[in-house]
């Protein structure tokens, strides 16, 4: 029998019971829609994490001062100021796997312009910092090594700070005051958005390290060193080398704990990615359960349909339908139901991911793969759950089927 005819027969049989067909399809529609929307949310989250990691720089290491142990009481990370400017210089000069090392020091300060003020993190660092962190300039320039040497009163503003202090005005060349010290704005950073931890990366003012140390804070230490390895592959080597060098410089004898911590961004990235992958999997599998429930709904209705149409099956057999013609007819009916449900489900899934993006502001990514998979899956569900009722129909004895009232 021609497949086109079988499709026509199936379509007519389903159209006869519009309401029932629609309700049966609803299970698959919701199932497929849920899978597509959930996977879209998961993929969106994953992509966002990846973009954030990339915005930090995947070949980056961060060196933090360590904890101290005094009389058995261990302080937290950063309780001591063990890192120095010279440590940063040594890392950059002596280690072959390291491209750049930028020391930095941070403080929170009220920043004042002519008629606005804004509390923000002020970071003192070296010009290399912009390269290490992959900052792109939206205007102006970074400060120079001579600015650093001379503890020049120049500042680079993040987008958020610039917006809050100057609004739509161009901040380049303007004067800001940080703890009453006037600074000239020389550069404006392009926005980076939120960090993986949800912090606004653009809420920063960056000034030369020497200026922050001498003119604002009156200290000589630094807090962190941002290290950029030659390549993402060399981050592990760089991490080991930095650790060895710092232990040596800090005269830590073997067996003693480090007084610093080296953190590898790749590890953080991997962890973040793994967690978003788990989330996608979890959301997807929860949604799959509803797809299976939808399939059971199809099986249920097909069984009812076979019983109801026993006489029709008998008539078809009497005029020459073979078992496999009957099998095909009911199987195609189940697949048409599930595939139509699947297609409507894809539309529902795409629409709801758009709604999630628009109203909840979660990024969503609809991959063609998930649409293909959902479509394929709904066909598979039709075949799987349609086979048993169809086989039952095909195995009916023609006489008994004809006698059925």
């Amino acid at each position: 029998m021609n497949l086109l005819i079988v499709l026509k027969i199936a379509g007519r049989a389903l159209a006869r019971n519009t309401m029932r067909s629609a309700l049966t399809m609803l299970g698959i529609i919701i199932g497929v829609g849920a899978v597509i929307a959930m996977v879209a949310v998961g993929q969106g989250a994953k992509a966002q994490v990846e973009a954030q990691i990339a915005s930090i720089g995947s070949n980056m290491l961060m060196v933090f001062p360590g904890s101290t142990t005094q009389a058995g009481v261990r302080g937290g990370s950063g309780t001591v100021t063990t890192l120095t400017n010279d440590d940063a210089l040594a890392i950059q000069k002596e280690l072959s796997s390291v491209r750049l090392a930028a020391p930095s020091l941070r403080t929170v300060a009220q920043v004042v312009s002519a008629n606005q003020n804004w509390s923000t993190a002020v970071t003192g660092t070296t010009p290399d910092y912009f390269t290490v962190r992959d900052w792109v300039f939206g205007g102006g320039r970074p400060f120079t090594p001579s600015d650093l040497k001379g503890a020049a009163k120049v500042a680079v503003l993040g987008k958020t700070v610039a917006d809050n202090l100057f609004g739509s005005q161009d901040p380049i060349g303007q004067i800001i005051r940080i703890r009453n010290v006037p600074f000239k704005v020389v550069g404006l950073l392009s926005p980076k958005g939120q960090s993986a931890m949800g912090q606004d990366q653009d809420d920063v003012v960056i000034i030369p390290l020497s200026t922050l140390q001498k003119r604002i804070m009156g200290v000589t230490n630094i807090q962190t060193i941002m290290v950029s390895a030659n390549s993402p592959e060399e981050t592990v080597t760089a991490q080991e080398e930095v650790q060895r060098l710092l232990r040596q410089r800090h005269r830590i004898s073997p067996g003693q704990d480090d007084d610093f911590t080296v953190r590898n961004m790749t590890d953080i990235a991997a962890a973040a990615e793994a967690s978003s992958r788990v989330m996608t999997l979890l959301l997807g599998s929860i949604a799959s359960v509803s797809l299976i429930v939808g399939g059971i709904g199809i099986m249920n209705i097909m069984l009812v349909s076979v019983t109801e149409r026993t006489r029709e099956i008998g008539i078809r057999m009497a005029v020459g339908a073979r078992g496999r013609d009957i099998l095909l007819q009911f199987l195609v009916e189940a697949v048409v139901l599930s595939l139509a449900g699947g297609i409507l489900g894809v539309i529902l899934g795409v629409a709801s991911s758009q709604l999630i993006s628009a109203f909840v502001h979660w990024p969503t990514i609809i991959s063609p793969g998930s649409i293909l998979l959902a479509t394929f899956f709904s066909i598979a569900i039709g075949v799987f759950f349609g086979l048993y009722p169809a086989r039952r129909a095909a195995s009916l004895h023609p006489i008994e089927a004809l006698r059925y009232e």
Partner: protein
Amino acid sequence: MAPLIQIEDLSKIYQTGEIELAALRGISLSVARGEFVAIMGPSGSGKSTMMHILGCLDQPTRGRYLLDGEEVGGLKPNELARIRNQKIGFVFQGFNLLHRTTAIENVELPILYDGLSVRDRAARAGEALERVGLGDRRSSYPNQLSGGQQQRVAIARALVMRPPLILADEPTGNLDTRTSVEIMALFQELNRDGITIMVVTHEPDIAHYASRIVTFRDGTIRSDLPVSRRTDAKEILSKGMFESA
């Protein structure tokens, strides 16, 4: 020429648990091409079982059944389906049309299961409907047709594959007298065109439209007689003699 139907020592035994029930006990029967045979007998006499086996809807327990020279006895379900499709047209008491399916689509049904793809399916089905006098009711649904018209659609469906044999199981059982005569007139007309017809009935009037009456009792053939004074349905219709017939 070999007979269309040849049955030799055919038995059908139904096994229900420990109990064996013989519905047919060693029947032998031969029907030539172009015959019009009525099968009579009380309920439980085995005539329905006989029709099911003749129609390849069921298999005999023992014995031989040759249809159109082909041994049907050992055939597989798929081959039986092919024979039902190609060589036999069924007409039932309850018409057995598909609901919410137009007359023409009901008639097309056997063509769908033909191994060959028939391009002029609608044309052939239309032709069959013309032949039973319903050329103008192609798109009617069964519930829009009278009982007689529904039976005509069923006969058109039985004809559409141009089978050599039509089996009718109480074809007039659900019809009034006039319509019954009309249906029998149609069968006589088809018979004149060369189609072999077998009708199961328990009404002697109906049996007398046939050329031969085979009577069953207790799973055996009790009598097998030619009809001496055959009723001509056309004549009755033209004279309006329903009441007396």
